[in-house]
């Protein structure tokens, strides 16, 4: 399993999977906005915790962990950069407050990764394409999107075959200096590109043969309907947004250290 598995759709059935992508998208947007609104640790920590039950409801704990682990390196970098820059440029703050702000920035990043991870783990590219389509995005673009997703595993497999074929002819990809290594990829990239072009031509031929572009009002086998759960999620998102705006304007948020001490 690679880091990407933390963002790749997993086809299982759960209440989260069945939600309308549009509702989930609104939720992610709200979360995004709220996370950017605050730079104190407590609200960001709350945002992080709110999402945990969702992860478990969607039964994607393992993949979610994967995305968390994958982003750990970046999280540490963000923490370090914040800590150092605050330490050197914001002289009059205490070290604990610097530490807390750096930590807050890191959690903000994690919250963003987490919400994206949940969205992509639980939304099939098919329904996502459909959601795009029903949001008025031209069908051609939506089609290009789902087809691209569909051919990712095929291209990955093809790349492996090409690598094998060239290795069988004595190509050592990992040998030589930096420039040499880049050149080593030419015998792999060219066949990959040529085949992709050939494949797209064949696909186009197939599409033409299945009456592509026959009428303006094309049917879609599936339709997305907003259901009660979707409404609840949208309602929750809006509520979250309102409360956050209110809090950020009117409420003083104490620092975590002041609460603990």
């Amino acid at each position: 399993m690679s880091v990407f598995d933390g963002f790749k759709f997993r086809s299982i059935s759960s209440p989260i999977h069945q939600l309308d992508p549009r509702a989930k998208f609104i939720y992610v947007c709200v979360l995004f906005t709220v996370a950017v609104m605050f730079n104190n640790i407590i609200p960001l920590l709350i945002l992080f915790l709110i999402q945990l039950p969702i992860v478990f409801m969607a039964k994607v704990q393992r993949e979610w962990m994967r995305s968390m682990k994958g982003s750990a390196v970046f999280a540490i970098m963000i923490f370090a950069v914040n800590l150092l820059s605050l330490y050197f440029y914001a002289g009059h703050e205490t070290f604990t407050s610097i530490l807390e702000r750096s930590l807050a920035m890191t959690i903000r990043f994690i919250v963003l990764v987490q919400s994206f991870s949940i969205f992509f783990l639980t939304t099939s590219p098919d329904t996502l394409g459909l959601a795009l389509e029903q949001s008025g995005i031209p069908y051609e673009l939506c089609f290009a999107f789902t087809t691209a997703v569909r051919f990712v595993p095929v291209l990955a497999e093809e790349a492996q075959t090409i690598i094998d074929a060239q290795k069988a002819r004595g190509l050592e990809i990992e040998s030589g200096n930096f420039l040499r290594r880049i050149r080593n990829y030419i015998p792999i990239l060219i066949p990959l590109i040529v085949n992709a072009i050939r494949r797209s031509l064949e696909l186009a031929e197939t599409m033409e043969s299945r009456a592509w572009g026959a009428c303006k009002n094309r049917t879609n086998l599936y339709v997305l309907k907003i259901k009660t759960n979707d409404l609840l999620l949208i309602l929750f998102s809006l509520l979250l947004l309102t409360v956050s705006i209110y809090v950020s304007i009117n409420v003083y948020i104490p620092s975590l250290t002041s609460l603990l001490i």
Partner: protein
Amino acid sequence: MTVIEAERLTYTYPAGEKPAFRDVNLKIEEGEFVIITGPSGCGKTTLCRCFNGLIPHFYGGKLEGEIRVCGLNVKEHPTYEIAQRVGMVFQNPENQLFALSVEKDVAFGLENLGVPREEIRKRIDWALKITGTYNLKNRPPYELSGGQQQRVAIASVLAMNPDVMVLDEPTSFLDPAGAEKIFEVIERLNREMSMTIILVEHRLDLVSRYADRIIVMHDGRIVMNGDPREVLASEKTRLIGVGIPKATMLYKLLKHRGINLNRPPLYSEEACQVIKEFLSR
């Protein structure tokens, strides 16, 4: 009724120096099972592309002469219109399915035509059942074997309910078990639904038994066109380099040595039959 009619048809690809095929005269009747064969580069695939309008509408180039398909002049009607009459299945199963589920792929043509959703559902089930792929309905196409993919490709063409099905070497990437199932499906479409079949194929051992007619192309021309036995037993066909069935070859070898079996057989069981007939004379 004639479903395909070509007269003095000549075609040159946009970048071509000489025609891919020339002076093709051809008539195919409703319900016929026709095999088109010939060495690689003889123009058979190009000819098939004219049957649903990919040539000239998709490929461009210069198409001279006349071609009418189901009464429609191919030059004047767009591919999407002709595609509803003539279904086309290609060689590579991998590049004919582009959706994330089998069901969605089979629906594609009907969606394009704006068929109501309920009707689409009915036709998907029908097409999947005929091709024996109903159990794959919700699977992602890239997980299927080549043979399964090719049957789904047939289903997705079949769902549009065409009068003619053109298949361009549909089994060349498949193993024997996969190929056999494809031929069974094709034969069924022809026999049970009287669908006109045009099959481009090299493996004549396996398919010539189903054909009403075999057309041999060579160097951009139709050189033989007639009853499978006559075409395959003729010396001309062999010299062009068509892989004639082993059973027919055996017949010819025996004839050469002065033994005349009743008729040229097309497949081994038939060869066995005629040899038995000879033995019990």
